[in-house]
């Protein structure tokens, strides 16, 4: 009973906040609604008994990704009215993406009804699902798991290489050199003659 009420609460809030992400006038409000949507999705995961995914959703998406989103959106001065003017032009493309997503969801739902695909044995619900994840990821799905890690590493290095530009006139601080400075060479005592000053 409570689980049913909680499901409808989380589900309707997810849909509502997802709609508000699109319809909010202010981009910062959009991101904040997106965070609310993430939260409610995590709540749905908890109801399914997938506590590890729920926590990961909050940790990764809310705690890191959305912070960076918010960071960027707050710094950029985005004019949403201007973006909206291209609405009709981009509509067919958007509809196409929506259709593909819908098809994927339908396929996933029908496929899972026809029997379990992941794992040969049914998932043991008694053990924490973090252990079930670990068992599968590091045995059967080891290669895809390592490959995805490698791809992420390459993407990270790529992003750094693409955006990094070294300015010739940038002045950095070399802490090692500063710490190793010797008073003998750093300080010079001179006796300047009156009206002449010191040669550097």
């Amino acid at each position: 009973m409570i689980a049913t009420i909680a499901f409808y609460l989380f589900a309707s809030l997810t849909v509502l906040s997802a709609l508000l992400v699109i319809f909010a006038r202010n981009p910062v409000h959009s991101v904040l609604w997106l965070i609310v949507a993430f939260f409610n999705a995590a709540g749905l995961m908890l109801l399914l008994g997938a506590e590890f995914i729920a926590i990961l959703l909050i940790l990764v998406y809310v705690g890191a990704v959305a912070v960076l989103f918010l960071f960027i959106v707050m710094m950029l001065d985005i004019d949403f009215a201007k973006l909206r003017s291209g609405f009709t032009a981009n509509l067919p493309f958007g509809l196409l993406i929506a259709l593909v997503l819908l098809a994927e969801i339908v396929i996933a739902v029908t496929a899972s009804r026809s029997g379990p695909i992941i794992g040969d044995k049914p998932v043991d619900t008694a053990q924490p699902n973090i252990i079930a994840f670990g068992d599968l990821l590091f045995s059967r799905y080891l290669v895809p798991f390592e490959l995805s890690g490698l791809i992420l590493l390459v993407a990270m290095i790529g992003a750094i290489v693409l955006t990094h530009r070294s300015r010739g006139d940038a002045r950095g601080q070399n802490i090692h050199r500063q710490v190793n400075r010797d008073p003998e060479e750093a300080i010079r005592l001179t006796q300047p003659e009156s009206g002449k000053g010191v040669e550097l």
Partner: protein
Amino acid sequence: MTAFFESLGMSHDWAWFVATVSGILLIALPLMLAVAMIIYAERKIWAAIALRRGPNVVGPFGLLQSFADGLKVFLKETIIPSSANKALFLIAPIITFTIALIVWAVVPFDVGVVLADINIGLLYILAVGSLGVYGVIIAGWASNSKYPFFSALRAAAQMVSYEVSIGFVIITVILWAGSFNLTEIVLAQEGHVLGILNGFGFNPLLFPMAVVFLISSMAETFRTPFDLVEAESELVAGHQTEYSSMSFALFWLGEYANVILMCGLNAILFWGGFLPPLDIEILYAVPGIIWLFLKMGLFFFVFGWVKATVPRYRYDQLMRLGWKIFLPLSLLFVFLVSGWLMLTKTSGGAL
């Protein structure tokens, strides 16, 4: 506690509900009292270091100073800037305060004395702790004023940077304890080094991680020397600049609740939590909660000591420390610890 309320003649569901609510109150109310006393204690520590007297007027030895401050703040008018985003402006301190409180749900005070004994307790703390930055960011943006806004940007970058190394440090602890459950992590430290020292921190492979965690926890709670978020010489009061009255007090309470939590986490993850420091029978006569509070008090003294003596970092130095020193160091120790455990297969056991 559920059983106790059931014995009073309640049905199981009601007993569970009443037990949980009273458990929450039993944590939240002493926590608020602890925040008040710890602010007083910290002001006394700073005063002692600066050869001053500190608060000594209200009540005996000035013990009631924090309550007087609280009453004063409570009686002030709440001012909302006319150009602020009103709803978000008011939500921000509430978020900070609420998040600072809900993290305590999984903190074990003794064996079995924990509100929610979930098997992913440490992940829960990481996840909820990473939300704390939203209070600062939303406050900074909603104030619609430049100093709070700078503060929000600084907070976002600082939080994300130090969370990376905290994550790696926690992985080393999890590897050795073999569990995400905080109670099991504490119990795994029993007689960890030479069969007599309780605590991962005594282990030479984990001691550097304990130091990294202590420094990172100062950065996570925006304490000196990492308090660039509210650097008063540059940003007035950072994200709190436009706040007044209780909305300001909520930030203050949340901040100190987080500091106490971080002291507790240092004790729980590395120094044996509710276990006595030495694995000797007679020391177990003292209740575990006393040991935990003693350790938390010790770490709180270190926090206050550092705040009173260490000057503030520059922002680029802060980023350098986080990304160029802590990240490679903690990554290296993840390799070392997992390598050691693989070679000796002592996961969950003693050194």
